[in-house]
C-alpha cells in the first residue's frame, strides 16, 4: 500500500477519534457516555498492542503460554465487587487522582512514597509505551509497499510523528481541567470505541484466517498436529511450567489493579459503583472473545510462513500474503486503536502522577503560594502538558535504543513485574492497619531493585557489552547471584523468576518493618480511614489528635490561589454550615485542615496539599507524652472550674425539675383524656346493645320467634345492669382517686367481714359449683372501713369465681398476721394470670390479651377500685408470683 494513502487513513482515523472525544466532552451527562458498557469497554484498555500482536507470537513460539496474562484478570474480576469497590469509594472520598496519590495517602500522605510510586510507575510504563510505538512502527513498515523504507533519522521516522500526534491528543483532552480527579469523558469514550474496533477487527481476521484461508478449526488442527514440535506447543511441560503459569497469573492479577492506566479507567473514571456489577462478567467475556482465534491465527501463520517471518504480525501478514489489503488495513487500524488507547490513558495517568507527586511537591510549591489563582491553574495544566510530551518522547527514544531488540511479549512482562512491586503496600495496606509508611517504602525499594537486577540489568548489559557474561556467571562470578537463577532457582522463566524473588523480598520487608516500626499519629489515622473505609465520616470528624494553630484567613488565602475566590468562599461556607460553626470562625480546627487538604488534593495531589496547608499552619508533632500532658492539663482545668461547675449543675437541676413538672402535668392531661375516652366507649357499648335490641323488638313484633324475643329482652336487662354498674363504679373510682372519699374506720372483727363477703357471693359460687374455703377461723380485730373492705373481698372473690372452672373450682381465703400488718389472700385454682399482665391488671380498663370472659360482666374498674381502697387503708395489694396453679391475690392492712 502506498505510504501516503496509509498516512491519510491514519490521520482520518485520528480525526474521527477527536470528533468522538469532542462529542463526549460536550455531552458529559448523556447516557451514551455514562453507562456500564462504556465503563467495561474502557477497562479493555488492558488489551494493548501486546495482546493484539504479541499473543499470536507467543502462541506460535511457546503454545498456550499467552493465556495466563488473561487468566489473572479473569480471576480478579469477581473480587472487584469487594476490593475495587472499596478502592473506588476511598478514592472518591479523598479526591484521589492517581495510584501514587492513593498509596501515599494511605501511608499518611508521605511525599517521598508518592514520588517513589511515581518513579516505579514511570519505569514500568515507559517500556510499555515504547512497546506500543514499536508495534506501530513495525506494522507500518509491513503495510507500506515502499520496501526501501528504513528510517535513518528521527525526522524521517513516521513513528516519531505518530507519537507526536498521540501526545497532542492526550494533551488536548487530558488537561481540560486543573483538578485531575475530574472525569475525562472524552478520552474514555474514545477508549470504549476503540475497544469495540480492535475486538471486531481481530475477530474478523480470526474468522477470515480460520474459515476462508483454511477449512475451519479442525483443518488447521489436522495440519499443524503433524508438525514435529506440536506436542510442546499444547501441553505444560511438568511442574516447572506449572510454577511459571502460577506466577504469571499472579503477575497479571496484580497488573489489572495496579497498572496506572487500569487504575485510571477502573477507579478514577468510574461514575457509579453499580457499573462494576456488569463489568465483572462482561470484561472476562471480552477477554475470552479476544483470545478465541489467537491459537488458530498462530498455527495458520506457522503453516503458511514456517519460521521466515515475525510471528507476532501473522494477523497482518496472512491477509497481505493473500492480497487482501482491505482486511489488512482493518487489522492495522485495530492494532493502531489498541496502541492509541493504551498510550493516551497511560500518559494521562503518568502525567498526573509526575506533576502532582513529583514536580509540584519537589519544587513548584513555593511559586504557587505567591501566584494568582488563574495563573496557578494554568501552571498546573502546563506542567501536565509538558509531562505528557516528555513521557511520550522519552518512550520513543527508549524504543529507538532498546525495544528493537526485544519482542513485544518480553517488554510487556517487564512492565508487569515492575508495576507489581506496588502490590504488597497497596493490597495489604487496604486491609491491614498496621502497614506503615517506612515498611511500604522499603518493600517497594527492595522489590524494585531485585526486579531491575533480575530482569532489566541482564539485557541492558547485553546490549551495551555485547556479551552475556553477567547472565552466565552472575555478579562477580558468584553463581548464587545469577540474575536468571537467583539462589539456584533455575527452572523459572525470567519474568516469573523475577516476580517470585522481588515479591518474596518485597512482602517480607513490608511485613517485618510494619510489625517492628509504628508510624506517627497522622499515618495511623489515614491507615484507619482506608482500612475501615465504611466508617469514614466518623473517623474524619474526630480527625486526629491535632495540636497546632491556624487562622481561617490564612487557609482561605491558600484555597483562593488554587480554586479562585468564589469557589473557596463557597467551600468554606458549606464547611461551616455542615459542622454548625459560625461563619466568622477565626481559628481553624483539625476538621478544617483535613477539609482544605482534600479540596486541594484534586489539583495538586495529596502530598503537595498537605505541604501547602502545613505552610500556613503551625503544626506540632505530638508525642505520647504530650497527649498525656494535654489530658493532664484538662484535668487541672476541671478542678479550677469546679465552683463554676457546681453552680451550673444547680441551675441545670432546677431547670430539669421544672421540665419534669411540666411533663407530669402534660401526662396527667393526656391520661385524663384517655380515661374519658375509655369511659365514653364503655358507656356506649351497653347503650348500643339496648338501642339495637329495642329497635328490633319495636319493628318486628309479629314475625319474631318467641325465644328470640325473650333473648333480646334479657339482653336489654343485662345491658341496663351493666350500664348501672358502670356508672356506679366510675363515680366510686373518681371519688377514690381524687381523694374525696373518707373512710369510716371502726374497730371490728375481720373474720366476721370475711364471712359476710363469702355468704354474699355464695349463691353465684354454688351456681357454678365452685367451693369457697375459709382457712383461718380465728377472729382478729383491727380498725378499718367495713363496707369498703367488704367491697374489696367481694370483688376478689367474684373475680376468682369468674376464672374458676365449673365443678372443680376451689377458692381459699386465708388470713395471716405479720409484722404490724394483717395479710389476707384469695387464691383460686383457675387458669391464672399470665406474667406479662400481672403488673397491669390493677390499671383501670386494662384488658388482658388473654382474657376470654363474657363481656357484659366486667366494668374494667373493679381491680382499680380495689387497689384504691386498700391503699387508702395504707395497705398494699399484689398478685403473688410463681404460683403453680391459679391466681393468688394478697392484700395487707397495717395496724398499730
Amino acid at each position, binding site marked *: 500500500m502506498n505510504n501516503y494513502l496509509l498516512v491519510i487513513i491514519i490521520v482520518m482515523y485520528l480525526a474521527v477519534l477527536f470528533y468522538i472525544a469532542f462529542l463526549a466532552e460536550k455531552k458529559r451527562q448523556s447516557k451514551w457516555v455514562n453507562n456500564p458498557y462504556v465503563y467495561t469497554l474502557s477497562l479493555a484498555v488492558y488489551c494493548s498492542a501486546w495482546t493484539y500482536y504479541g499473543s499470536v507470537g507467543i502462541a506460535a513460539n511457546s503454545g498456550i503460554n499467552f493465556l495466563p496474562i488473561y487468566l489473572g484478570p479473569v480471576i480478579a474480576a469477581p473480587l472487584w465487587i469487594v476490593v475495587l469497590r472499596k478502592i473506588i469509594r476511598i478514592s472518591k472520598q479523598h479526591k484521589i487522582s492517581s495510584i501514587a496519590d492513593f498509596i501515599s495517602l494511605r501511608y499518611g500522605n508521605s511525599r517521598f512514597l508518592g514520588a517513589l510510586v511515581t518513579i516505579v510507575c514511570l519505569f514500568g510504563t515507559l517500556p510499555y509505551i515504547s512497546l506500543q510505538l514499536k508495534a506501530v512502527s513495525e506494522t507500518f513498515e509491513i503495510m507500506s509497499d515502499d520496501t526501501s523504507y528504513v528510517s535513518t533519522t528521527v525526522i524521517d521516522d513516521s513513528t516519531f510523528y505518530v507519537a507526536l500526534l498521540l501526545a497532542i491528543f492526550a494533551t488536548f483532552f487530558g488537561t481540560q481541567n486543573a483538578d485531575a480527579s475530574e472525569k475525562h469523558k472524552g478520552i474514555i469514550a474514545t477508549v470504549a470505541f476503540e475497544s469495540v474496533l480492535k475486538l471486531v477487527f481481530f475477530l474478523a481476521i480470526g474468522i477470515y484466517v480460520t474459515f476462508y484461508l483454511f477449512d475451519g478449526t479442525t483443518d488447521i488442527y489436522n495440519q499443524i498436529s503433524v508438525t514435529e514440535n506440536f506436542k510442546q506447543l499444547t501441553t505444560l511441560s511438568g511442574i516447572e511450567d506449572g510454577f511459571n503459569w502460577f506466577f504469571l497469573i499472579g503477575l497479571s492479577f496484580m497488573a489489572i489493579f495496579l497498572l496506572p492506566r487500569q487504575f485510571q479507567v477502573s477507579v478514577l473514571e468510574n461514575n457509579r459503583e453499580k457499573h462494576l456489577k456488569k463489568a465483572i462478567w462482561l470484561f472476562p467475556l471480552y477477554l475470552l472473545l479476544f483470545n478465541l482465534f489467537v491459537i488458530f491465527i498462530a498455527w495458520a501463520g506457522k503453516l503458511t510462513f514456517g519460521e521466515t517471518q515475525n510471528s507476532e504480525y501473522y494477523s497482518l501478514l496472512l491477509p497481505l500474503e493473500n492480497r487482501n489489503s482491505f482486511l489488512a488495513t482493518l487489522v492495522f487500524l485495530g492494532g493502531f486503536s489498541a496502541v492509541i488507547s493504551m498510550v493516551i490513558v497511560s500518559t494521562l495517568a503518568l502525567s498526573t502522577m509526575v506533576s502532582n507527586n513529583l514536580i509540584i511537591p519537589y519544587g513548584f510549591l513555593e511559586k504557587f503560594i505567591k501566584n494568582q489563582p488563574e495563573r496557578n491553574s494554568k501552571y498546573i495544566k502546563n506542567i501536565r502538558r509538558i509531562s505528557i510530551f516528555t513521557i511520550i518522547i522519552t518512550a520513543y527514544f527508549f524504543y529507538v535504543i532498546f525495544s528493537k531488540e526485544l519482542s513485544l511479549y518480553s517488554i510487556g512482562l517487564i512492565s508487569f513485574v515492575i508495576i507489581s512491586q506496588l502490590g504488597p503496600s497497596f493490597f495489604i495496606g487496604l486491609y491491614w492497619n498496621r502497614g506503615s509508611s517506612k515498611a511500604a517504602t522499603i518493600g517497594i525499594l527492595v522489590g524494585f531493585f531485585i526486579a531491575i537486577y533480575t530482569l532489566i540489568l541482564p539485557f541492558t548489559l547485553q546490549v551495551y557489552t555485547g556479551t552475556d557474561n553477567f547472565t552466565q556467571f552472575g555478579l562477580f562470578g558468584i553463581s548464587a547471584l545469577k540474575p536468571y537463577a537467583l539462589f539456584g532457582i533455575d527452572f523459572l522463566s525470567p519474568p516469573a523468576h523475577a516476580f517470585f524473588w522481588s515479591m518474596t523480598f518485597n512482602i517480607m520487608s513490608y511485613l517485618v518493618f510494619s510489625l517492628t516500626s509504628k508510624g506517627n499519629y497522622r499515618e495511623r489515622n489515614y491507615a484507619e480511614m482506608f482500612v475501615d473505609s465504611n466508617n469514614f465520616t466518623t473517623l474524619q470528624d474526630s480527625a486526629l489528635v491535632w495540636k497546632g494553630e491556624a487562622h481561617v484567613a490564612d487557609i482561605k488565602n491558600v484555597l483562593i490561589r488554587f480554586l479562585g475566590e468564589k469557589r473557596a468562599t463557597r467551600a468554606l461556607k458549606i464547611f461551616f454550615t455542615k459542622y454548625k460553626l459560625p461563619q466568622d470562625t477565626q481559628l481553624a480546627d483539625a476538621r478544617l485542615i483535613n477539609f482544605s487538604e482534600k479540596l486541594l488534593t484534586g489539583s495538586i495531589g495529596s502530598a503537595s496539599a498537605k505541604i501547602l496547608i502545613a505552610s500556613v499552619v503551625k503544626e506540632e508533632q505530638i508525642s505520647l507524652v504530650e497527649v498525656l500532658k494535654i489530658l493532664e492539663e484538662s484535668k487541672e482545668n476541671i478542678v479550677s472550674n469546679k465552683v463554676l461547675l457546681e453552680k451550673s449543675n444547680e441551675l441545670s437541676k432546677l431547670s430539669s425539675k421544672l421540665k419534669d413538672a411540666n411533663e407530669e402535668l402534660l401526662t396527667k392531661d393526656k391520661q385524663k383524656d384517655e380515661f374519658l375516652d375509655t369511659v365514653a366507649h364503655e358507656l356506649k357499648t351497653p347503650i348500643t346493645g339496648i338501642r339495637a335490641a329495642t329497635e328490633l323488638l319495636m319493628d318486628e313484633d309479629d314475625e319474631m320467634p318467641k325465644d328470640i324475643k325473650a333473648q333480646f329482652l334479657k339482653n336489654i336487662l343485662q345491658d341496663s345492669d351493666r350500664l348501672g354498674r358502670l356508672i356506679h363504679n366510675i363515680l366510686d373510682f373518681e371519688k377514690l382517686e381524687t381523694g374525696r372519699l373518707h373512710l369510716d374506720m371502726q374497730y371490728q372483727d375481720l373474720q366476721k367481714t370475711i364471712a359476710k363477703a363469702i355468704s354474699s357471693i355464695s349463691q353465684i359460687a354454688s351456681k357454678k359449683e365452685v367451693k369457697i374455703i375459709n382457712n383461718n377461723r380465728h377472729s382478729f380485730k383491727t380498725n378499718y372501713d367495713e363496707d369498703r373492705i367488704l367491697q374489696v373481698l367481694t370483688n376478689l372473690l367474684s373475680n376468682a369465681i369468674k376464672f374458676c372452672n365449673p365443678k372443680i373450682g376451689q377458692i381459699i381465703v386465708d388470713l395471716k398476721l405479720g409484722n404490724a400488718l394483717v395479710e389476707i389472700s384469695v387464691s383460686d385454682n383457675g387458669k391464672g394470670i399470665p406474667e406479662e399482665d400481672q403488673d397491669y391488671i390493677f390499671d383501670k380498663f386494662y*384488658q388482658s390479651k388473654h382474657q376470654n370472659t*363474657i363481656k357484659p360482666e366486667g366494668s374494667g374498674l373493679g381491680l382499680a377500685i380495689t387497689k384504691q381502697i386498700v391503699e387508702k387503708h395504707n395497705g398494699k395489694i399484689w398478685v403473688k408470683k410463681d404460683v403453680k396453679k391459679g391466681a393468688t391475690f394478697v392484700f395487707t392492712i397495717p395496724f398499730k
Partner: protein
Amino acid sequence: MKKKILIVDDEPNIVMSLEYTFKKQGFEVFIARDGSEALEILKHHIPNVILLDVMMPNVDGYQTLTHIKNMDSLKATKVVFLTAKNKASDIEKGLKLGADKYLTKPFSVKKIVSEILELVT
C-alpha cells in the same frame, strides 16, 4: 346467590342484634369475636362485606383491616368500621387504612342495613 357478611365484634349482645337483622335481610352471616378469629374465617370464606369493630382483644380492628388489605382474595370485599370511637382523628385513620365506610355506635339498625345494602348492590 346469597350475599355474605362477616360481623367482627366482641360484644355478644350487639352481635346478636346484627346477626338477626342481616339474616332477615337474606345474608349468610359469619361471626368472629376478634381480629384473629376473623382472619381465620377469611381463609375459607370470601364475604361481600365485613362489619368491623375497632376495640377488641388480641388483634384490633385497624390491624385486622391492614391484614385484609394484604389478602388478594378480598380485593372485592367491602369493609365497614362499626365502632364507638367517633373522634374525627379516629374516623380519618379508619378511612385512610382503606375502609369503605365508617359508622359509629350507638347505631340505628335501619340505618346500618341501608348503608350496607348501598355498598353491596
